[in-house]
């Protein structure tokens, strides 16, 4: 019998946060991620931590900011409409160089939209959320195990690079249960936080956590410095899974739950002799453009499969850089693509290649 625990995706994120020393959660209920708050409300008091339900997502992200500014490991979570509300605070956290983990269990939009799974917040997450020149680390789990693992990694990376990290999940991953093994999750070395505003104790000069720079030259310098860090991240942290790509004529690009649907379709297509593979970005920012560019040298055609009207496809096209045509298949509004429909699209492309 294994050490694995059968858990919901939202709960796996919560437990992973606790496992890696996060004792503070600030949030506001919204479907389909409320189980995360509920789990925290139950567990955190038992480890000497705190789960506080804020009056709004706006307040929750600013409580998160306060905790992070004081040097504390902290997490907040929401779903699409709530992330829009948090975007102000996320921009401030980026501007203050504050680490934290933000979870978006995406649902259909725009507006109130629906409560079923979606990947419609790809643009929002990868283009920074909120105003200004900024980036977020964006990690896209594809299983409940990864919900846990990438949460731990998001905390570590956020601390190392002093910036907010986002877990971009969806309603299906949030609600589904799969076995999780917490012991196998890798950890990194975490730097101290000498910059934290937690009281100087008359032992050092005061710390200021701030995003305001009235002098434009100073602000440019600060942003330039931050972008040097972003460059390192783009160079070293981009990650993806390559699945049956070696001989693939057709390469699917898909992340999260959708990538798993693609795998099922790919297996079926392979049985029919179609050479098809999958690139599954695990980091959406930084985007694994080098991997895609390398595979584009030999692939004949790409297919971006998403639960949206086509957002990641822009990044796929940039990475492929004209070396092969990039097609799209997706469902939106909370509809989930079926393996059968993805298979149909693969077959169509196979026919076009052969023609």
């Amino acid at each position, binding site marked *: 019998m294994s050490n694995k625990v059968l858990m919901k995706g939202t709960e796996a994120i919560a437990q992973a946060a606790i496992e890696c020393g996060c004792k*503070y959660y*600030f949030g506001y209920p919204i479907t389909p991620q409320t189980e995360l708050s509920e789990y925290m409300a139950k567990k955190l008091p038992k480890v000497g931590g*705190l789960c*506080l339900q*804020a*009056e*709004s997502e*706006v*307040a*929750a992200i*600013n*409580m*998160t*900011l*306060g*905790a*992070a*500014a*004081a040097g*504390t490991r*902290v997490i907040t979570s929401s779903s699409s409409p709530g992330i829009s509300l948090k975007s*102000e*605070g996320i921009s*401030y956290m980026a501007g*203050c160089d504050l680490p934290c983990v933000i979870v978006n269990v995406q649902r259909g939009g725009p507006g109130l939209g629906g409560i079923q799974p979606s990947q419609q917040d790809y643009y929002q997450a990868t283009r920074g959320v909120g105003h200004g020149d900024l980036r977020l680390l964006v990690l896209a789990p594809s299983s409940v195990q990864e919900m846990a693992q990438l949460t731990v990694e998001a905390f570590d990376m956020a601390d190392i690079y002093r910036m907010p990290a986002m877990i971009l999940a969806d309603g299906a991953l949030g609600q589904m249960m799969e076995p999780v093994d917490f012991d196998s999750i890798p950890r990194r070395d975490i730097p101290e936080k000498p910059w934290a*505003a*937690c*009281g*100087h*104790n*008359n*032992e050092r000069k*005061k*710390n*200021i*956590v*701030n*995003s*305001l720079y009235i002098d434009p030259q100073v602000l440019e310098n600060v942003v330039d410095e931050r972008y040097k860090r972003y460059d390192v991240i783009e160079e070293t942290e981009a990650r993806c899974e390559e699945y049956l790509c070696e001989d693939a004529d057709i390469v699917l690009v898909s992340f999260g739950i959708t990538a798993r649907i693609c795998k099922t379709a790919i297996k079926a297509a392979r049985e029919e002799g179609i050479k098809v593979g999958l690139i599954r970005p695990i980091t959406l920012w930084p985007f694994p453009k080098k991997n895609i560019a390398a595979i584009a040298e030999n692939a004949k055609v790409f297919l971006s499969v998403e639960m949206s009207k086509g957002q990641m496809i822009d990044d796929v096209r940039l990475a492929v850089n004209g070396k092969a045509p990039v097609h799209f298949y997706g469902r939106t509004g909370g509809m989930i693509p079926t393996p059968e429909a993805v298979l149909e699209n693969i077959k169509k492309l196979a026919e076009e290649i052969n023609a």
Partner: protein
Amino acid sequence: MKTVFDRPHALSDVPLHYCPGCTHGIIHRLVAEVIDELGIEGQTIGVASVGCSVFSYNYFECDMVQAAHGRAPAVATGIKRTHPDSFVFTYQGDGDLAAIGTAETVHAATRGENITIIFVNNAIYGMTGGQMAPTTLLGQVTTTSPYGRDKAIQGNPIRVCEMLSTLDGVALASRVSVDTPKNIIAAKKQIKKAFENQRDKKGFSIVEVLSTCPTNWGMSPEKSLEWLRENMMPQYPLGTYKDIDAKEAE
């Protein structure tokens, strides 16, 4: 020679950017004096807001965090909840606290967050150049109420201390003024109490300080103080609207 007047240690040795005649400087000094007297500078974290006091992070010697417009009480909550033995205060103006940050203010208050709020009410948006504030008086001319604030159009001004005094989490809600030496002494007493309440884990304390804006009111500093007494004080009467200690004493 005996020193009779000096800069409080908690007040940074830098020129303040405030306009001549503005009372922000006095209020800063009072907060710094209280931090000195309680000997808590090393354990204090201040939260600056958006408005005229946006640069207050440069003026206090304790650790400081700059918050988004209106969000200071939420930021303070995050700091205080993760560092419950620290002293956390916000320094906010009327637009920040009573317009865009109303929800954060009310809910921090009703939760009984053990923080101190210094609320500077000068009935106008100073930093952006004299627009109408939630506390702008009826009939008062601002750049966005050029014909005078009209109840039928812009609605009524808001009385913050009176409103918050109805909430269970509030330990102290007091309105003071720094227009005369006597009032300055009284104001400092309330600010000190607001910090002592944190030390004694009593809950949310707010001190509303009536202040002037000679620049945007278009008056001399002296005339501003007169205008404050004649116009603001009737709308915003000085006094303690809630003090749980006083209640216990009854």
